[in-house]
């Protein structure tokens, strides 16, 4: 038992990879065997993620090295204090992201078991899905820059193949190709940055580099390459163009997880700004760059969303807009923490708001994409101009959609409000104009979801959707889990902030803690 608990960070990657490698073999035995196998693997991997997270929150940062029994062997005496093996470093913010990936990963796998049953090529689908899950876990957990690049590439490739999965007369392939090409270029430029850091510090470990960072000209070049590659992967305006395309054409369950995968890039962006270049790069400049990207994302995302007629494309633009909130919160945190004009409280609150919003966004946006998937599954169309009157037959879907829509618009008592409140209050103290923009964006979000709600669920029963049925049970259960979490996080926000978000925010700021956790002693 102990050996399993000690090696949990390794199992985090191993279980989904095992699932991926064996799914095509086991699907020879029939659909039922494969479904059971998929459920077993996803349950185990989600449990594993949650266990790792809970151990981190209890006992502090886990440092796990591959290939040695004891951690002390990783940094031999004559290697100049550099870890020679690949290290997983899981501190509270990684734990926070792991919880998101575990919860959403479980829900979408459950959902896709029944949403995929009509389609061909299911074994390939689940294989790629598990690879995507494994790569997201890896991106979150790893403490090694090159290893991060490898997982980034797995997530781009698996994501692109899943986006293109439906083909849809070539349109889905177009979206997948755009995603693959952009993220490959992003990954390549990221690798240039890794090389630049390696050239100076002869290490690939984030903690070592953070410890030795001197901010030479090459480091600044590397910072820019990291920054834009990761900002592009998380879909910040004006690099967001791939987001609506690929979110629209992917199967809905995949879209819900692509949101998490872009948030893993977002996490890495914060890791680069706070830990890797912690205390070295000018926080005011970088903070304002992040704030400007965030404000642009919020505003352009939401205004582009309103006139859309494809429901998933509309939601995808909202994903861009909500990413803006996270960038805004963390950017304000970065800028305010360094500035002497503001108390530490403003910065920490903004940081907490931004991080809490990541979790809330993954939950309600996942829920919304899953409801859009139900509409697609039952009605065969996503065009808002053709839909109508579905509320008569799809009561549960309507309720779930309502919960998600109210949460994304920041209506209390749902979870979107709790995190937006933190962002509003701190941003207002930082710069009132930005807070006003954030509130206007929130109102526009509500307006566009009123439009969607009206045109999908309201109105008389249309003749073509006379006999539309409610979604199948597994899909309802998956949506139900997310909906319950949305409500719980909205009613008990303080508990969530205390147990998950505050440790994460402090871990993000405290880069000395991260370095000493890996290198031992300060």
């Amino acid at each position, binding site marked *: 038992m102990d050996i399993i608990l000690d090696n949990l960070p390794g199992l985090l990657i191993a279980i989904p990879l095992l699932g991926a490698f064996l799914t095509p073999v086991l699907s020879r035995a029939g659909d039922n065997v494969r479904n059971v196998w998929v459920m077993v693997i996803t349950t185990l991997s989600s449990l594993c993620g949650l266990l790792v997270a809970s151990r981190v929150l209890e006992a502090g940062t886990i440092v796990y090295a591959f290939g040695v029994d004891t951690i002390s062997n990783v940094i031999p005496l004559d290697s100049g204090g550099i870890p020679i093996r690949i290290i997983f470093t899981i501190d509270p913010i990684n734990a926070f992201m792991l919880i998101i990936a575990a919860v959403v990963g479980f829900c979408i796998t459950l959902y896709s078991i029944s949403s995929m049953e009509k389609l061909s090529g299911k074994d390939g689908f689940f294989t790629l899905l598990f690879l995507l899950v494994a790569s997201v876990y890896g991106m979150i957990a790893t403490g090694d820059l090159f290893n991060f690049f490898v997982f980034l590439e797995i997530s781009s490739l698996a994501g692109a193949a899943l986006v293109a999965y439906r083909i849809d007369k070539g349109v889905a392939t177009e*979206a997948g190709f755009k995603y693959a090409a952009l993220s490959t270029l992003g990954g390549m430029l990221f690798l240039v940055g890794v090389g630049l850091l390696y050239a100076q510090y002869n290490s690939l470990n984030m903690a070592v580099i953070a410890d030795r960072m001197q901010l030479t000209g090459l480091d600044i070049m590397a910072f820019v390459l990291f920054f834009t590659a990761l900002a592009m992967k998380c879909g910040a305006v004006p690099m967001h163009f791939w987001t609506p395309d690929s979110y629209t054409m992917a199967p809905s369950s995949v879209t819900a997880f692509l949101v998490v995968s872009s948030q893993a890039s977002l996490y890495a962006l914060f890791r680069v700004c706070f830990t890797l270049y912690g205390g070295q790069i000018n926080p005011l400049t970088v903070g304002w760059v992040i704030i400007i990207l965030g404000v642009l994302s919020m505003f352009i995302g939401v205004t582009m969303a309103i006139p859309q007629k494809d429901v998933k494309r509309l939601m995808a633009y909202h994903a861009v807009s909500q990413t803006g909130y996270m960038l805004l919160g963390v950017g304000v945190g970065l800028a305010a923490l360094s500035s002497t004009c503001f108390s530490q409280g403003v910065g920490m609150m903004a940081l907490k708001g931004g991080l809490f919003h990541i979790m809330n966004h993954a939950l309600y946006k996942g829920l919304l994409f899953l409801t859009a998937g139900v509409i697609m599954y039952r009605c065969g169309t996503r065009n808002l101009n053709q839909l109508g009157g579905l509320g008569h037959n799809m009561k549960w879907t309507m309720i779930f959609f309502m919960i998600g829509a109210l949460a994304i618009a920041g209506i209390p008592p749902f979870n979107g409000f709790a995190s937006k409140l933190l962002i509003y209050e701190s941003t207002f103290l930082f710069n009132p104009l930005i807070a006003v923009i954030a509130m206007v964006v929130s109102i526009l979000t509500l307006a566009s979801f009123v439009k969607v709600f009206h045109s999908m669920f309201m109105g008389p029963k249309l003749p073509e959707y006379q006999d539309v049925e409610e979604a199948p049970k597994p899909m309802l259960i998956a949506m139900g889990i997310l909906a319950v979490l949305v409500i719980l996080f909205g009613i008990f926000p303080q508990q969530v902030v205390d147990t998950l978000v505050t440790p994460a925010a402090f871990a993000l700021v405290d880069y000395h803690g991260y370095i000493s956790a890996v290198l031992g002693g300060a």
Partner: protein
Amino acid sequence: MIDNLPFLVVAVTILLGLYTILLKKDLIKIIMGISIVESGVNLFLIVLGYRWDSIAPIFTGAPSLAMVMPTVQALTLTSIVIGVATLALMLSMVMIIFRYYKTTDVSKVTKLQG
């Protein structure tokens, strides 16, 4: 300056790749541009590890000299395989796009817009 010729080659290669990506109109050519950038990055990694007057990091019967840095070579191996994999996926996607759109002109593969 002239000592840094390999790095200049890397910079020029990456720039050529970026030029191809930005200014060529054909999807295949864009993929070629990405591939050129990849080659530039791989070359960059290899060049990083070079030390004057040293041999490949293999223990043979040769008189023992200084060896070049091995880590970057291992990274390059990984990076090459990743490059091949992405290339294969992107080319097959272009095949499917061509099958349905009957074109590989990047300005015509724009069904998703607005």
